[in-house]
Protein backbone atom coordinates (compact mmCIF):
# COMPACT_ATOMS: atom_id res chain seq x y z
CA UNK A 1 0.00 0.00 0.00
CA UNK A 2 1.73 3.08 -1.29
CA UNK A 3 0.33 6.33 -2.53
CA UNK A 4 0.89 6.47 -6.30
CA UNK A 5 2.69 9.37 -7.93
CA UNK A 6 0.12 11.18 -10.03
CA UNK A 7 0.41 12.08 -13.71
CA UNK A 8 -1.83 15.00 -14.67
CA UNK A 9 -2.40 16.25 -18.23
CA UNK A 10 -3.33 19.92 -18.45
CA UNK A 11 -5.74 21.36 -21.01
CA UNK A 12 -5.75 25.07 -21.78
CA UNK A 13 -9.31 26.03 -22.63
CA UNK A 14 -10.61 29.26 -24.16
CA UNK A 15 -14.03 29.91 -25.64
CA UNK A 16 -14.99 26.28 -25.24
CA UNK A 17 -12.00 24.91 -27.16
CA UNK A 18 -8.66 23.45 -26.21
CA UNK A 19 -6.01 25.88 -27.41
CA UNK A 20 -2.21 25.76 -27.47
CA UNK A 21 -2.16 22.91 -29.92
CA UNK A 22 -3.29 19.35 -29.57
CA UNK A 23 -2.33 16.89 -32.23
CA UNK A 24 -3.94 13.49 -31.96
CA UNK A 25 -4.52 11.35 -35.00
CA UNK A 26 -7.07 9.16 -33.24
CA UNK A 27 -9.36 11.97 -32.15
CA UNK A 28 -12.02 13.27 -34.48
CA UNK A 29 -11.90 16.70 -32.89
CA UNK A 30 -8.72 17.43 -30.97
CA UNK A 31 -10.05 20.81 -29.90
CA UNK A 32 -13.01 19.51 -27.92
CA UNK A 33 -12.09 19.51 -24.22
CA UNK A 34 -14.72 16.95 -23.28
CA UNK A 35 -13.47 14.50 -25.89
CA UNK A 36 -9.87 15.05 -24.82
CA UNK A 37 -10.73 14.64 -21.16
CA UNK A 38 -12.36 11.33 -21.97
CA UNK A 39 -9.33 10.28 -24.00
CA UNK A 40 -6.93 11.08 -21.15
CA UNK A 41 -9.21 9.40 -18.61
CA UNK A 42 -9.02 6.19 -20.65
CA UNK A 43 -5.28 6.65 -21.25
CA UNK A 44 -4.51 6.38 -17.53
CA UNK A 45 -4.42 10.01 -16.35
CA UNK A 46 -4.70 10.16 -12.56
CA UNK A 47 -6.37 13.55 -12.63
CA UNK A 48 -7.18 16.25 -15.16
CA UNK A 49 -6.61 19.98 -15.04
CA UNK A 50 -8.51 22.52 -17.12
CA UNK A 51 -6.94 25.92 -17.27
CA UNK A 52 -9.52 28.47 -18.33
CA UNK A 53 -7.54 31.12 -20.17
CA UNK A 54 -10.53 32.97 -21.57
CA UNK A 55 -11.26 36.52 -20.58
CA UNK A 56 -14.93 37.22 -21.27
CA UNK A 57 -18.02 36.52 -19.24
CA UNK A 58 -19.57 34.52 -22.10
CA UNK A 59 -16.53 32.26 -22.09
CA UNK A 60 -17.06 31.73 -18.38
CA UNK A 61 -20.48 30.16 -18.84
CA UNK A 62 -19.02 28.04 -21.64
CA UNK A 63 -16.40 26.79 -19.19
CA UNK A 64 -19.08 25.80 -16.68
CA UNK A 65 -20.84 23.90 -19.45
CA UNK A 66 -17.61 22.07 -20.39
CA UNK A 67 -16.94 21.18 -16.77
CA UNK A 68 -20.41 19.76 -16.39
CA UNK A 69 -20.23 17.77 -19.64
CA UNK A 70 -16.80 16.43 -18.65
CA UNK A 71 -17.97 15.45 -15.17
CA UNK A 72 -20.72 13.39 -16.77
CA UNK A 73 -18.24 11.25 -18.67
CA UNK A 74 -14.96 11.23 -16.81
CA UNK A 75 -14.72 9.65 -13.37
CA UNK A 76 -11.34 10.91 -12.23
CA UNK A 77 -10.72 14.14 -10.32
CA UNK A 78 -10.99 17.39 -12.25
CA UNK A 79 -9.26 20.64 -11.24
CA UNK A 80 -10.30 23.88 -12.89
CA UNK A 81 -8.11 26.98 -12.72
CA UNK A 82 -8.27 30.44 -14.18
CA UNK A 83 -10.48 33.43 -13.47
CA UNK A 84 -11.49 32.50 -9.92
CA UNK A 85 -11.96 35.72 -7.96
CA UNK A 86 -14.50 34.83 -5.28
CA UNK A 87 -15.87 31.93 -3.26
CA UNK A 88 -19.01 32.15 -5.39
CA UNK A 89 -16.92 31.26 -8.48
CA UNK A 90 -15.73 28.14 -6.63
CA UNK A 91 -19.29 27.25 -5.69
CA UNK A 92 -20.37 27.45 -9.36
CA UNK A 93 -17.48 25.28 -10.52
CA UNK A 94 -18.03 22.64 -7.83
CA UNK A 95 -21.73 22.50 -8.65
CA UNK A 96 -20.83 22.01 -12.30
CA UNK A 97 -18.69 19.01 -11.37
CA UNK A 98 -15.17 20.29 -10.64
CA UNK A 99 -13.48 18.63 -7.67
CA UNK A 100 -10.78 21.21 -7.04
CA UNK A 101 -10.02 24.74 -8.13
CA UNK A 102 -6.74 26.44 -8.90
CA UNK A 103 -6.15 30.05 -7.85
CA UNK A 104 -3.29 32.28 -8.87
CA UNK A 105 -3.47 36.00 -9.72
CA UNK A 106 -6.60 36.83 -7.73
CA UNK A 107 -5.05 35.34 -4.58
CA UNK A 108 -1.88 37.37 -5.08
CA UNK A 109 -3.96 40.52 -5.41
CA UNK A 110 -6.12 39.62 -2.41
CA UNK A 111 -4.69 36.82 -0.21
CA UNK A 112 -7.83 36.75 1.96
CA UNK A 113 -9.49 34.95 -0.98
CA UNK A 114 -7.63 31.81 0.12
CA UNK A 115 -9.16 31.98 3.61
CA UNK A 116 -12.61 32.59 2.17
CA UNK A 117 -12.42 29.55 -0.10
CA UNK A 118 -10.83 27.16 2.39
CA UNK A 119 -13.16 28.18 5.24
CA UNK A 120 -16.18 27.44 3.11
CA UNK A 121 -15.11 24.40 1.10
CA UNK A 122 -12.10 22.99 2.98
CA UNK A 123 -8.37 23.27 2.23
CA UNK A 124 -8.47 20.18 0.02
CA UNK A 125 -10.48 22.01 -2.65
CA UNK A 126 -7.78 24.60 -3.26
CA UNK A 127 -4.73 24.22 -5.48
CA UNK A 128 -2.41 27.20 -5.19
CA UNK A 129 -0.89 27.77 -8.60
CA UNK A 130 2.50 29.48 -8.35
CA UNK A 131 4.17 30.69 -11.57
CA UNK A 132 7.74 31.30 -10.40
CA UNK A 133 10.94 32.38 -12.12
CA UNK A 134 14.50 33.11 -11.05
CA UNK A 135 14.90 36.66 -9.85
CA UNK A 136 16.70 38.80 -7.30
CA UNK A 137 14.21 38.26 -4.48
CA UNK A 138 15.32 36.77 -1.15
CA UNK A 139 14.86 33.12 -2.12
CA UNK A 140 16.02 33.75 -5.68
CA UNK A 141 12.53 33.01 -7.04
CA UNK A 142 9.81 35.52 -7.82
CA UNK A 143 6.07 35.02 -8.37
CA UNK A 144 4.85 36.12 -11.78
CA UNK A 145 1.45 36.62 -13.38
CA UNK A 146 0.22 36.56 -16.98
CA UNK A 147 2.06 33.37 -17.87
CA UNK A 148 5.41 34.55 -16.56
CA UNK A 149 5.42 37.86 -18.43
CA UNK A 150 4.64 40.09 -15.46
CA UNK A 151 6.82 40.11 -12.37
CA UNK A 152 5.17 40.90 -9.04
CA UNK A 153 8.30 41.50 -6.96
CA UNK A 154 6.79 39.01 -4.50
CA UNK A 155 9.20 36.38 -3.20
CA UNK A 156 7.90 32.95 -4.23
CA UNK A 157 8.87 31.21 -0.99
CA UNK A 158 7.39 33.93 1.21
CA UNK A 159 4.19 33.76 -0.83
CA UNK A 160 3.98 29.97 -0.51
CA UNK A 161 4.48 30.22 3.26
CA UNK A 162 1.78 32.90 3.58
CA UNK A 163 -0.71 31.09 1.33
CA UNK A 164 -0.29 27.66 2.96
CA UNK A 165 -0.80 29.19 6.41
CA UNK A 166 -4.17 30.47 5.12
CA UNK A 167 -5.22 27.00 3.96
CA UNK A 168 -4.38 25.36 0.64
CA UNK A 169 -4.54 21.64 -0.15
CA UNK A 170 -1.79 21.48 -2.78
CA UNK A 171 0.73 23.62 -4.60
CA UNK A 172 1.02 23.57 -8.37
CA UNK A 173 4.54 24.84 -8.92
CA UNK A 174 5.06 26.09 -12.49
CA UNK A 175 8.59 26.97 -13.50
CA UNK A 176 8.44 29.92 -15.87
CA UNK A 177 12.13 29.40 -16.68
CA UNK A 178 11.59 25.78 -17.72
CA UNK A 179 8.11 26.17 -19.25
CA UNK A 180 8.09 25.38 -22.95
CA UNK A 181 11.81 24.49 -23.07
CA UNK A 182 11.28 20.71 -22.84
CA UNK A 183 14.66 20.69 -21.06
CA UNK A 184 13.28 19.03 -17.92
CA UNK A 185 11.50 20.17 -14.76
CA UNK A 186 13.22 22.75 -12.56
CA UNK A 187 14.49 20.27 -9.98
CA UNK A 188 16.32 22.87 -7.91
CA UNK A 189 13.14 24.85 -7.39
CA UNK A 190 11.13 21.68 -6.66
CA UNK A 191 13.51 20.46 -3.96
CA UNK A 192 13.77 23.88 -2.33
CA UNK A 193 9.98 24.36 -2.27
CA UNK A 194 9.58 20.79 -0.98
CA UNK A 195 11.78 21.65 1.99
CA UNK A 196 9.61 24.60 3.07
CA UNK A 197 6.12 23.15 2.73
CA UNK A 198 4.11 20.20 4.05
CA UNK A 199 1.35 20.05 1.42
CA UNK A 200 1.51 17.92 -1.74
CA UNK A 201 3.53 19.45 -4.55
CA UNK A 202 2.59 19.19 -8.23
CA UNK A 203 5.53 20.06 -10.48
CA UNK A 204 4.92 21.68 -13.85
CA UNK A 205 6.92 23.14 -16.71
CA UNK A 206 9.71 21.73 -18.83
CA UNK A 207 8.77 18.09 -19.38
CA UNK A 208 10.47 16.84 -22.55
CA UNK A 209 11.53 13.23 -21.94
CA UNK A 210 10.15 10.39 -19.82
CA UNK A 211 13.29 10.55 -17.66
CA UNK A 212 12.39 14.13 -16.66
CA UNK A 213 9.40 12.86 -14.67
CA UNK A 214 11.55 10.57 -12.52
CA UNK A 215 13.98 13.42 -11.82
CA UNK A 216 11.17 15.67 -10.62
CA UNK A 217 9.96 12.94 -8.25
CA UNK A 218 13.50 12.51 -6.97
CA UNK A 219 13.56 16.25 -6.24
CA UNK A 220 10.44 15.84 -4.10
CA UNK A 221 7.37 16.27 -6.32
CA UNK A 222 4.25 14.26 -5.42
CA UNK A 223 2.55 14.72 -8.78
CA UNK A 224 3.58 15.81 -12.25
CA UNK A 225 1.68 17.97 -14.67
CA UNK A 226 2.43 18.28 -18.38
CA UNK A 227 0.65 19.52 -21.48
CA UNK A 228 2.37 19.57 -24.85
CA UNK A 229 4.32 16.28 -24.55
CA UNK A 230 1.02 14.49 -24.05
CA UNK A 231 -1.01 16.60 -26.50
CA UNK A 232 1.51 15.99 -29.28
CA UNK A 233 1.98 12.34 -28.44
CA UNK A 234 5.74 12.73 -27.79
CA UNK A 235 5.08 9.88 -25.37
CA UNK A 236 2.03 8.50 -23.62
CA UNK A 237 1.00 8.61 -19.97
CA UNK A 238 1.49 4.83 -19.88
CA UNK A 239 5.06 5.20 -21.16
CA UNK A 240 5.80 7.68 -18.36
CA UNK A 241 4.26 5.34 -15.80
CA UNK A 242 6.17 2.34 -17.11
CA UNK A 243 9.42 4.25 -16.77
CA UNK A 244 8.56 5.40 -13.24
CA UNK A 245 7.58 1.87 -12.20
CA UNK A 246 10.88 0.60 -13.53
CA UNK A 247 12.63 3.20 -11.40
CA UNK A 248 10.80 1.92 -8.32
CA UNK A 249 8.10 4.59 -8.03
CA UNK A 250 4.55 3.61 -7.24
CA UNK A 251 2.12 4.40 -10.06
CA UNK A 252 -1.50 3.50 -10.71
CA UNK A 253 -1.66 0.96 -13.54
Amino acid at each position, binding site marked *: *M*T*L*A*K*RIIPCLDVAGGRVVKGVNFKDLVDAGDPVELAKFY*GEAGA*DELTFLDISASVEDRSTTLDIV*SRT*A*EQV*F*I*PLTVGGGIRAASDVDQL*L*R*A*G*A*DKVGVNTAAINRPQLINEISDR*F*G*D*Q*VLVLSVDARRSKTESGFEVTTHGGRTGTGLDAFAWIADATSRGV*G*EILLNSMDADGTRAGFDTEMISRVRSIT*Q*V*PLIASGGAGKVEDFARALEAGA*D*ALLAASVFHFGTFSIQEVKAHLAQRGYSV*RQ
Partner: protein
Amino acid sequence: MIAILDYGSGNLRSAERAFSLSGHETIITSDPEICASSDGLVVPGVGAYGACMKQLIAASGDTIIKSRVASEKPILGICVGMQILFSSGTEKGGQLGLGIFDGEISQISAKILPHIGWNTISSPKDSLLFKGVEDQSFYFVHSFAAKSHVDGALSGWSEYGEKFMASIERGSTSAVQFHPEKSGDAGARLISNWVSSL
Protein backbone atom coordinates in the same frame (compact mmCIF):
# COMPACT_ATOMS: atom_id res chain seq x y z
CA MET B 1 -34.29 4.40 -5.61
CA ILE B 2 -31.01 5.77 -4.28
CA ALA B 3 -31.03 9.04 -2.35
CA ILE B 4 -27.91 11.16 -2.07
CA LEU B 5 -28.27 13.18 1.11
CA ASP B 6 -27.96 16.86 0.30
CA TYR B 7 -26.92 18.74 3.42
CA GLY B 8 -24.75 21.28 1.67
CA SER B 9 -21.56 19.26 1.64
CA GLY B 10 -19.68 17.91 -1.31
CA ASN B 11 -19.72 17.74 -5.04
CA LEU B 12 -22.99 15.87 -5.32
CA ARG B 13 -23.29 15.98 -9.07
CA SER B 14 -20.50 13.52 -9.78
CA ALA B 15 -21.85 11.19 -7.10
CA GLU B 16 -25.31 11.36 -8.63
CA ARG B 17 -23.92 10.57 -12.07
CA ALA B 18 -21.76 7.69 -10.81
CA PHE B 19 -24.60 6.05 -8.86
CA SER B 20 -27.16 6.49 -11.62
CA LEU B 21 -24.82 4.69 -14.02
CA SER B 22 -25.37 1.59 -11.90
CA GLY B 23 -28.89 1.50 -13.35
CA HIS B 24 -30.75 2.66 -10.24
CA GLU B 25 -32.75 5.85 -10.20
CA THR B 26 -30.68 8.32 -8.18
CA ILE B 27 -31.71 11.65 -6.75
CA ILE B 28 -30.02 14.36 -4.73
CA THR B 29 -32.37 15.30 -1.93
CA SER B 30 -32.69 16.66 1.57
CA ASP B 31 -36.29 15.49 1.93
CA PRO B 32 -36.39 13.40 5.15
CA GLU B 33 -39.18 11.16 3.91
CA ILE B 34 -37.44 10.29 0.65
CA CYS B 35 -34.15 9.73 2.51
CA ALA B 36 -35.90 7.49 5.02
CA SER B 37 -37.72 5.37 2.45
CA SER B 38 -35.09 5.08 -0.31
CA ASP B 39 -33.53 1.67 -1.03
CA GLY B 40 -30.09 3.10 -0.37
CA LEU B 41 -28.87 6.34 1.21
CA VAL B 42 -25.51 7.83 0.20
CA VAL B 43 -23.97 10.19 2.76
CA PRO B 44 -21.27 12.34 1.12
CA GLY B 45 -19.12 14.90 2.89
CA VAL B 46 -16.17 17.19 2.32
CA GLY B 47 -14.47 19.82 4.41
CA ALA B 48 -14.02 19.95 8.16
CA TYR B 49 -15.61 17.40 10.51
CA GLY B 50 -17.33 19.92 12.76
CA ALA B 51 -18.72 21.94 9.85
CA CYS B 52 -20.10 18.76 8.28
CA MET B 53 -21.76 17.65 11.54
CA LYS B 54 -23.32 21.06 12.01
CA GLN B 55 -24.77 21.08 8.49
CA LEU B 56 -25.90 17.47 8.85
CA ILE B 57 -27.83 18.22 12.04
CA ALA B 58 -29.35 21.36 10.51
CA ALA B 59 -30.73 19.16 7.70
CA SER B 60 -31.96 16.48 10.20
CA GLY B 61 -29.44 14.12 8.63
CA ASP B 62 -28.49 12.77 12.07
CA THR B 63 -32.03 11.55 12.73
CA ILE B 64 -32.39 10.12 9.22
CA ILE B 65 -29.14 8.17 9.46
CA LYS B 66 -29.77 6.84 12.97
CA SER B 67 -33.26 5.64 12.12
CA ARG B 68 -32.03 3.92 8.96
CA VAL B 69 -29.32 2.17 10.96
CA ALA B 70 -31.91 1.07 13.55
CA SER B 71 -34.17 -0.37 10.86
CA GLU B 72 -31.23 -1.91 8.97
CA LYS B 73 -31.70 0.06 5.77
CA PRO B 74 -28.56 0.42 3.61
CA ILE B 75 -26.31 3.45 4.01
CA LEU B 76 -23.05 4.24 2.25
CA GLY B 77 -20.89 7.00 3.75
CA ILE B 78 -18.18 8.62 1.63
CA CYS B 79 -15.10 10.51 2.91
CA VAL B 80 -16.24 12.82 5.75
CA GLY B 81 -19.59 11.02 5.32
CA MET B 82 -17.74 7.96 6.68
CA GLN B 83 -16.00 9.89 9.45
CA ILE B 84 -19.19 11.37 10.95
CA LEU B 85 -20.53 7.83 11.53
CA PHE B 86 -17.84 7.42 14.23
CA SER B 87 -18.01 8.62 17.86
CA SER B 88 -15.91 11.75 17.50
CA GLY B 89 -13.39 13.69 15.48
CA THR B 90 -10.38 15.68 16.71
CA GLU B 91 -10.31 18.12 13.77
CA LYS B 92 -10.32 21.80 14.80
CA GLY B 93 -10.72 21.26 18.54
CA GLY B 94 -12.88 18.13 18.62
CA GLN B 95 -16.48 17.33 17.76
CA LEU B 96 -18.96 14.55 18.50
CA GLY B 97 -20.04 12.35 15.61
CA LEU B 98 -23.08 10.08 15.29
CA GLY B 99 -21.50 7.21 17.25
CA ILE B 100 -22.74 4.45 14.96
CA PHE B 101 -19.21 3.07 14.96
CA ASP B 102 -17.04 3.30 18.09
CA GLY B 103 -13.83 5.18 17.52
CA GLU B 104 -12.17 8.51 17.02
CA ILE B 105 -11.24 10.24 13.77
CA SER B 106 -7.79 11.79 14.13
CA GLN B 107 -5.10 13.29 11.95
CA ILE B 108 -2.90 10.90 9.98
CA SER B 109 0.75 10.94 11.05
CA ALA B 110 2.45 11.80 7.77
CA LYS B 111 4.94 14.45 6.74
CA ILE B 112 2.88 15.67 3.82
CA LEU B 113 -0.87 16.22 4.19
CA PRO B 114 -3.55 16.00 2.87
CA HIS B 115 -3.25 12.41 1.66
CA ILE B 116 -4.20 13.11 -1.96
CA GLY B 117 -4.24 10.59 -4.77
CA TRP B 118 -4.60 6.91 -5.62
CA ASN B 119 -3.79 4.30 -3.01
CA THR B 120 -4.37 0.58 -2.71
CA ILE B 121 -6.32 -1.10 0.07
CA SER B 122 -5.92 -4.31 1.94
CA SER B 123 -9.55 -5.31 1.61
CA PRO B 124 -11.26 -7.71 3.99
CA LYS B 125 -12.04 -11.24 2.92
CA ASP B 126 -15.78 -11.62 2.28
CA SER B 127 -16.14 -7.91 1.56
CA LEU B 128 -19.17 -7.08 -0.50
CA LEU B 129 -17.83 -3.71 -1.64
CA PHE B 130 -14.46 -4.88 -2.97
CA LYS B 131 -15.62 -7.94 -4.88
CA GLY B 132 -13.66 -7.98 -8.15
CA VAL B 133 -11.59 -4.90 -7.28
CA GLU B 134 -9.59 -6.24 -4.34
CA ASP B 135 -6.22 -5.14 -5.74
CA GLN B 136 -7.26 -1.85 -7.35
CA SER B 137 -6.37 1.74 -6.43
CA PHE B 138 -8.93 4.28 -5.21
CA TYR B 139 -8.81 8.06 -5.00
CA PHE B 140 -8.38 9.64 -1.55
CA VAL B 141 -8.45 13.27 -0.40
CA HIS B 142 -8.27 13.64 3.40
CA SER B 143 -6.02 14.37 6.38
CA PHE B 144 -8.02 12.60 9.09
CA ALA B 145 -9.09 8.96 9.45
CA ALA B 146 -10.22 6.18 11.79
CA LYS B 147 -7.34 4.05 13.01
CA SER B 148 -8.67 1.45 15.42
CA HIS B 149 -10.49 -1.76 14.72
CA VAL B 150 -14.28 -1.71 15.21
CA ASP B 151 -15.74 -4.86 16.76
CA GLY B 152 -18.05 -6.85 14.54
CA ALA B 153 -17.18 -4.86 11.41
CA LEU B 154 -15.24 -5.77 8.28
CA SER B 155 -12.59 -3.16 7.58
CA GLY B 156 -10.25 -2.39 4.71
CA TRP B 157 -6.94 -0.73 5.56
CA SER B 158 -4.63 1.54 3.68
CA GLU B 159 -1.36 3.16 4.57
CA TYR B 160 0.05 6.68 4.32
CA GLY B 161 2.58 7.48 7.03
CA GLU B 162 0.61 5.03 9.16
CA LYS B 163 -2.12 2.46 8.77
CA PHE B 164 -5.65 3.87 8.64
CA MET B 165 -9.15 2.59 7.93
CA ALA B 166 -10.17 2.87 4.27
CA SER B 167 -13.53 1.11 4.50
CA ILE B 168 -15.97 -0.36 6.97
CA GLU B 169 -18.91 -2.72 6.49
CA ARG B 170 -21.27 -3.85 9.24
CA GLY B 171 -24.77 -5.10 8.55
CA SER B 172 -26.50 -2.62 6.30
CA THR B 173 -24.10 0.24 7.05
CA SER B 174 -21.03 0.71 4.87
CA ALA B 175 -18.59 3.55 4.45
CA VAL B 176 -15.43 4.36 2.53
CA GLN B 177 -12.76 6.98 3.22
CA PHE B 178 -11.94 7.33 -0.49
CA HIS B 179 -14.11 8.67 -3.33
CA PRO B 180 -15.55 5.78 -5.37
CA GLU B 181 -17.30 8.30 -7.63
CA LYS B 182 -13.84 9.65 -8.61
CA SER B 183 -12.04 6.30 -8.74
CA GLY B 184 -12.57 5.41 -12.40
CA ASP B 185 -13.58 1.85 -13.31
CA ALA B 186 -12.62 0.44 -9.89
CA GLY B 187 -14.88 2.95 -8.18
CA ALA B 188 -17.73 2.19 -10.60
CA ARG B 189 -17.43 -1.51 -9.75
CA LEU B 190 -17.48 -0.80 -6.02
CA ILE B 191 -20.59 1.34 -6.45
CA SER B 192 -22.29 -1.36 -8.48
CA ASN B 193 -21.36 -3.93 -5.82
CA TRP B 194 -23.11 -1.81 -3.22
CA VAL B 195 -26.10 -1.07 -5.43
CA SER B 196 -26.59 -4.75 -6.26
CA SER B 197 -26.92 -5.49 -2.54
CA LEU B 198 -29.88 -3.12 -2.10
